[in-house]
């Protein structure tokens, strides 16, 4: 594929790589799981960008199937194959630490996306989940006048995004004594599970007993919205909060069924851009922080159409 | 030596044993006889620890056995050949013989060589031509029976129970077994022998106990009885000749088999069956009789030859094809081939003839139950209920259900393989009568049996097989057991 044939077709955005273009680069891209649009977008946008701009770069994508040991095996496969650079979005930090260290020792530069590992790597690119939880709690407190009963629908038990989004949220919540979490459950980031759980909660709590639903992603938020609507309780003004920033969530915010969502950058095309820089010998920072943003009624017009 | 006192056992809905006591002395060959469902096997299973009795006690060698389990009873020197063979289908003959007490080498590891050698030795001693390396699942029923015999005989037991060991064995195979039993009995080993072939009782046994409906009728010396007396005590009525008078109305040839060949199993077998006739097939175990029936109905593929029905060439790719063409088969082994063991009598009776019970595309269960009930009454199947799970029935009664299933099909040609296997004399007579009536009404039957008197008494002509070759077809009127045996053991023609 892509036999050094320069694709000079794209006009307005000149590829930043005209000079050392003859050398071929093999990049390994290890994704922790592809069961989620956010993760898929991260891979696809980076790969698409590379195809367009770096014809001499070959990318091998692996999917950890939501299993850290599978992802470790994937990385080992990639290293065994002699890649020039590793881009990795680890499922959990600790589990992928050793194998990233191994890659670094073998002279393979490592870029971690979205989530870092506990060893020194070439660079970490991403936002952080914890602050998103904090920001959510802050804005929610503001909306509810620091008083409210909240249901938390968490992601997959044990996943680090789940842990961070949860911990950030309760950490900030501790500052508001009159805000409490009245029920919580893990719904694996799935709309189906969240909807079913929310149905049960609507049975348990009568009108006026729920002020907000904090969910760890937009899919689950929309599941909660569906359940509320099906129960005919959309007039209670339950504030449903999501995360990630999918287009469907933006629409829900626009029509008022969701309160807000936190846009989470999926590290593309930044990931591959920085990878190319490293490959071509450019120095980059060891920590590249991408911005998150809160999308609510107030700024929805700027975001609609730009979702995942 | 062995005393069982006041044994009672109740299954849900059935009192299988009611206060039965027997005692057997050392070196005796004790016959246990009775109708199907009388409780013979249940009594023996209590002896072996397979079932726990509701009340009563078992005393072996003067020692009262508390909490008997199979492992404990084996330790006490009791070996049982169960009526329903208890073999491991996926394992070799040698391993089956030594199950649970594998020979070990110095390091405590299973010694396969020793196991194999021992198995070979035992099989030779019993004149049982068994290949220790053969997988039991690949063996014919008769061979499996031999494995069971070898297994029990090799245990060096003090008491050996044989629950219908001969139901599928022919006369020839019996000889070796009987000789061995007699010689072991002389050495002081005690036997309990169950069989519905009364001839064997007189030939082999010294004492006997008769059971009826779970109760003991009486015990005594075999020499005090004759056949009629035995039958009377078992069935509760006198029975004259059990073979009905042959009433025939023989017509044209309906089924013709030409040069049927299955590599290594059947060689150029040709014969014809006429309408309204019963054709018997005789032969020793492994002669290929079962294979003929299976090949005809499409259960096994053939390598050559053809089958014609009413002059038309037919090719059945599965038994479903054969059954659609109005053939029926009573398979050799009821447990795996004949019955859906987890289902009840009604279900098993109707499964092959469901079309009969359809109203508006759904099964009319009332009609279905009625027909099942009719067959239960016809055969005196016990317990006489149609909702009994067949797994819980006695062996002979299971066989009656299999027969019911095939008869319910209203077929024109019936292939029966050892139809009276394990069936008591009363019911046998019933079955002979039924077969007789069926052919009178125009059905045609091929009957495989290892019981020569039965073949002679029921069939019109008898074909004799040996090692997959057809040796002769003789007229039943002109044949006798010696003649059939001589064909069955005659050397097969050598083919280039």
């Amino acid at each position, binding site marked *: 594929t892509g036999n050094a044939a320069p694709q000079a077709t794209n006009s307005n955005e000149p590829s930043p790589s005209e000079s050392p273009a003859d050398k071929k680069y093999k990049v390994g891209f290890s994704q922790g799981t*592809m*069961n989620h*649009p956010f993760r*898929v*977008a991260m891979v*696809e946008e980076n790969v698409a960008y590379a195809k367009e701009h770096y014809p001499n770069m070959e990318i091998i994508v692996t999917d950890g199937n939501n299993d850290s040991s599978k992802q470790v095996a994937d990385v080992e496969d990639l290293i065994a194959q002699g890649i020039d650079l590793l881009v990795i979005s680890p499922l959990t930090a600790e589990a992928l630490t050793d194998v990233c260290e191994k890659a670094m020792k073998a002279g393979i530069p490592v870029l971690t996306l979205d989530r870092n590992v506990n060893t020194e790597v070439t660079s970490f690119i991403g936002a952080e989940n914890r602050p998103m939880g904090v920001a959510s709690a802050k804005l929610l407190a503001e909306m509810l006048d620091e008083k409210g009963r909240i249901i938390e629908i*968490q992601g997959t*038990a044990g996943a680090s995004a789940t842990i961070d989004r949860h911990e950030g949220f309760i950490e900030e919540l501790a500052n508001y004594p009159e805000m409490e979490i009245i*029920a*919580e*459950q893990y719904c694996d980031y*799935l*709309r*189906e599970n969240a*909807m*079913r759980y929310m*149905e*049960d*909660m609507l*049975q*348990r709590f009568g009108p006026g007993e729920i002020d907000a639903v904090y969910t760890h992603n937009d*899919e689950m938020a*929309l599941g909660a919205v*569906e359940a509320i609507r*099906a129960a005919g309780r959309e007039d209670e003004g339950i504030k449903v909060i999501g995360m990630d920033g999918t287009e*469907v969530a933006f629409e829900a915010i626009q029509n008022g069924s969701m309160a807000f969502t936190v846009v989470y950058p999926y590290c593309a095309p930044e990931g591959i851009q920085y990878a190319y820089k490293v490959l071509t010998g450019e120095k980059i920072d060891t920590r590249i922080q991408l911005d998150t943003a809160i999308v609510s009624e107030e700024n929805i017009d700027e975001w609609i159409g730009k979702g*995942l | 030596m062995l005393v069982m006192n006041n044994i009672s056992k109740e299954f849900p809905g059935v009192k299988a044993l009611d206060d039965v006591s027997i005692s057997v002395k050392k070196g005796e060959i004790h016959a246990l006889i009775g109708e199907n469902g009388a409780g013979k096997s249940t009594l023996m299973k209590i002896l072996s620890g397979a079932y726990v009795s509701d009340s009563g006690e078992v005393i072996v060698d003067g020692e009262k056995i508390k909490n008997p389990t199979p492992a404990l009873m084996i330790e006490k020197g009791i070996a049982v050949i169960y009526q329903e063979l208890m073999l491991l289908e996926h394992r070799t003959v040698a391993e089956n013989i030594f199950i649970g007490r594998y020979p070990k080498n110095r390091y405590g590891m299973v010694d396969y060589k020793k196991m194999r050698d021992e198995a070979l030795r035992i099989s030779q001693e019993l004149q049982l031509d068994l290949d220790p390396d053969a997988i039991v699942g690949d063996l014919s029923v008769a061979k499996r029976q031999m494995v069971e015999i070898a297994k029990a005989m090799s245990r060096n037991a003090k008491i050996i129970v044989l629950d219908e060991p001969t139901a599928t064995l022919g006369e020839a195979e019996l000889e070796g077994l009987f000789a061995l039993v007699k010689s072991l009995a002389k050495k002081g080993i005690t036997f309990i022998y169950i069989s519905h072939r009364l001839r064997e009782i007189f030939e082999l046994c010294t004492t006997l106990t008769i059971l009826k409906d779970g109760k003991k009728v009486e015990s005594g010396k075999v020499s005090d009885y004759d056949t009629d007396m035995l039958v009377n005590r078992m069935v509760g009525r006198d029975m004259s000749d059990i073979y009905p008078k042959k009433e025939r109305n023989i017509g044209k040839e309906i089924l013709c088999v030409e040069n049927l060949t299955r590599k290594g199993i059947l060689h150029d077998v040709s014969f014809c069956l006429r309408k309204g006739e019963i054709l018997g097939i005789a032969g020793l175990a492994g002669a290929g009789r079962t294979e003929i029936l299976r090949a005809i*109905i499409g*259960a096994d593929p053939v390598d050559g030859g053809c089958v014609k029905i009413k002059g038309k060439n037919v090719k059945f790719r*599965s*038994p*479903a094809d*054969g059954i*659609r063409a109005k053939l029926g*088969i009573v*398979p050799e082994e009821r447990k795996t*081939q*004949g*019955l*859906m*063991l*987890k*289902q*009840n009598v*009604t*279900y098993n009776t*109707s*499964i*092959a003839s*469901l079309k009969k019970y*359809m109203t508006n*595309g*759904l*099964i009319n269960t009332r009609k279905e*139950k009625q027909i099942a009930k009719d067959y239960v009454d016809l055969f005196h199947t016990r317990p006489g*209920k*149609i*909702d009994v*799970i067949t797994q819980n029935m006695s062996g002979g009664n299971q066989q009656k259900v299999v027969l019911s*299933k095939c008869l319910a099909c209203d077929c024109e040609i019936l292939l029966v393989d050892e139809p009276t296997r394990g069936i008591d004399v009363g019911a046998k007579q019933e079955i002979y009568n039924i077969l007789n009536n069926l052919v009178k009404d125009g059905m045609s039957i091929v009957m495989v049996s290892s019981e020569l008197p039965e073949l002679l008494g029921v069939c019109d002509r008898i074909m004799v097989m040996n090692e997959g070759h057809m040796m002769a077809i003789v007229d039943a009127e002109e044949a006798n057991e010696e003649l059939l045996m001589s064909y069955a053991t005659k050397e097969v023609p050598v083919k280039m």
Partner: protein
Amino acid sequence: MAHKSSVSAKSGNTIFNNSIQKLKSFGILWVLIAIIIIASILEPTFLKFSNVVNIIRQIAINGIIAVGMTFVLLTGGIDLSVGASVGVVAVTVAMLFQKGVNPVLAIIIGLVIGAAIGFINGLGITKGKIVPFIMTLGTLTAFRGLALYIANGSPQSWRKSGVDIKFLGQGDLFGIPVPVYIFFAVLIIAHLILKYTAFGRSVYAIGDSREAARLSGINVVRTEWLVYIISGFLAGLSSLILISRLSVGEPTAGEGAELDAIAMSVIGGTSASGGIGGVIGTLVGATLLSVIANLLNIIGVSPFIQRIVKGIIIILAILLDQNQKKRKA
């Protein structure tokens, strides 16, 4: 126990006697009733009409898959691919909606796809003689990949296309949710098929003894094949209700549904080795699992403890079901 029930059903003198015997032997039903009583004491909300409706709606979606699974288990097989079928049907139908295809046509296509996946399973199992576990594990893997591939890993929403099939998953008639009607229709038809048709009888026969079934003139290949088609079809049907309920077709929809469906069947007394059981038991099994989940949610047990308790209740329920014990003994 379903064993017993199927027996008594076929025998019996009067219908009344029949039912009594059936209930007596149906141990797990008593366990379920006991749990329901305890539940309504612990938490009165539990028996509120709206919660009951809520529970039966939740039963419906997985229950439909479990009915298909019961057929498969009765033949002694297993179908691991049902969850993947749900996924494939979910995304294809959703994408057809997006493209503005007539909703009825799209739904029919969805059902056909489900049946087609079952057809492939049946093909491999009957003609290819591949053991069901491996065949359906293969299709599970492949079709989940296909669902993800078609949808490119993202949930497919048809909001913009204006198609509205909410009725199917969210609507109700006389206060009872539509999925419940569908589920009960499926259940009753399945029960009638199993009990009163030659095909149904063959299903049991094959699970009991393939060889005996074959020698009784049953077309084993056709029966088995059909059973997998039914399972795939019902997975497709369940998927349609699911996407209508969620208003989105997710490629990951139905993940883990196979274990759930097997659990419902087996808890309901269907033997995983074939020949024993039936769909009425599956209803009880499905209800038991849903009631446990709902109860733990509404009495507010913390999530990790919920799993522990759920596991223990499953074991205890079966332990209390004396009949299941006896069967094995």
